[in-house]
């Protein structure tokens, strides 16, 4: 097997430079590549375009990069919980491209599956459709949406092996597998890195062919955004 293991986040992101386009996995704060984000903050790389469903919160996730003004443009579906984000957006320091969540996911899939564009009905008749090609199939209108073209995809998995195979846990899967397929270079951080042969081939969500670098992450905080509970009766 081909060995994709690197020493850690710093080595994994070492060639990400100013102006790069990054995909970052996760939904809210669930399944985000914490180690790589921290390394990007430390490296202080700037002018980034970030494709990520959300933009973190003020003091966690992509919010940490926003605070340092490392992000030029966000491509997201929902950016709600971030005051600094709002300030930069309203002051014009930050560019934001809001797109439907399914369109975001499917444009990743298109990149990972070598399809230059896909058709989706999401956004037809709304401002999302402005300037886009509309095509009718069987009486229903669809927008033509293009595959993403990202320099790096950065994802977080639960387990991975040295060949780059990934397994995700519960709903932390979300955008991670589709982004893992979509990066020109894909970096995966995992909670547990195991030798090849330990993962059941039938359980692998992302085959190693899509992953270029993998490392065992550390000190995962796995912060919960909305802690909702019920009381034992």
């Amino acid at each position, binding site marked *: 097997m081909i060995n994709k293991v690197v020493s850690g986040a710093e080595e994994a992101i070492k060639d990400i430079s100013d102006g790069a386009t990054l995909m970052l996995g996760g*939904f*809210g*704060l*669930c*399944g985000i590549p914490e180690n790589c984000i921290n390394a990007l903050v430390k490296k202080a790389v700037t002018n980034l375009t970030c494709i990520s*469903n959300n933009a973190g919160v003020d003091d966690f996730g992509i919010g940490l990069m926003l605070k340092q003004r490392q992000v030029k443009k966000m491509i*997201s*579906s*929902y*950016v*709600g919980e971030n005051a600094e984000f*709002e300030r930069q*957006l*309203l002051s014009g320091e930050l560019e934001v491209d*809001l797109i*439907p*969540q*399914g*369109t*975001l*996911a*499917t444009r*990743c*899939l298109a990149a990972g599956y070598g399809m230059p564009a896909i058709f*989706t*009905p*999401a*956004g*037809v*008749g*709304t*401002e*999302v459709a402005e300037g886009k090609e509309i095509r009718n199939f069987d009486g229903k209108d669809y927008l033509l949406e293009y595959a993403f073209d990202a320099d790096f995809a950065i994802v977080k998995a*639960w387990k991975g092996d040295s060949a780059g195979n990934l397994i*995700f*846990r*519960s*709903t*932390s*899967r*979300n*955008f*991670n*597998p*589709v982004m893992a397929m979509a990066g020109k270079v894909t970096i995966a951080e995992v909670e547990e890195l195991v030798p090849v042969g330990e993962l059941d081939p039938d359980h692998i*969500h992302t085959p190693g062919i899509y992953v270029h670098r993998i490392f065992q992450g550390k000190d995962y905080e*796995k*912060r*919960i*955004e*909305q*802690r*909702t*509970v*019920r*009381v*034992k009766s």
Partner: protein
Amino acid sequence: MSLSKEDIAKRIAKEIKDGYYVNLGIGIPTLVANYIPENINVVLQSENGLLGMGPFPFEGEEDADLINAGKQTITTLPGSSIFDSAMSFGMIRAQKVDLTILGAMEVSENGDIANWKIPGKMVKGMGGAMDLVASAKNIIVAMQHVNKAGESKLLSVCTLPLTGVKCIKKIVTELAVLNVLPEGGFQLVERAPGVSVEFIRQSTSGKLIVEGEIPEMNLEV
């Protein structure tokens, strides 16, 4: 007497049939889960990648890796499945989800919906709403009939930027249950207990269609 949010949820729950896969939006729609009759089998889809969403976890059993589309900690039920975001919206787009319930700022009499953006205010984004309304075969809107300024949210034409066009089939508000007719117009189907047709008419800016006697809602489960 106008309905509480819980009552709106209770009324919407009656629209859910045995064997339905249902996607619940944030807000009142989330409450609907509490009133699904126990004698029918319904599976809740959460668009972040889960079928078979269960109740909130017990205190101390929260799992940071297990959340719903509202980012709340939740649980799974036996028979649930996890998938990625592309498959999640794939099954939505392919109309495998039988019913979508979501909130709205405005609905027009031809079934357009606006629920994501107020010009001049901070825009948080549409999340999965545009995908859901563009694809769902059956959409129920749960919302207040009038906004805080007392203006009707059931309009001839939406004034806010749209989320989707000609997609809403039914609306449940604190005052009424209304069908959006294919040819246009809000058809009054039920009144909240004690609320008059006249009051509903005053609260509805778009074309209201009232035919015959309009019964009061039955909120019994």
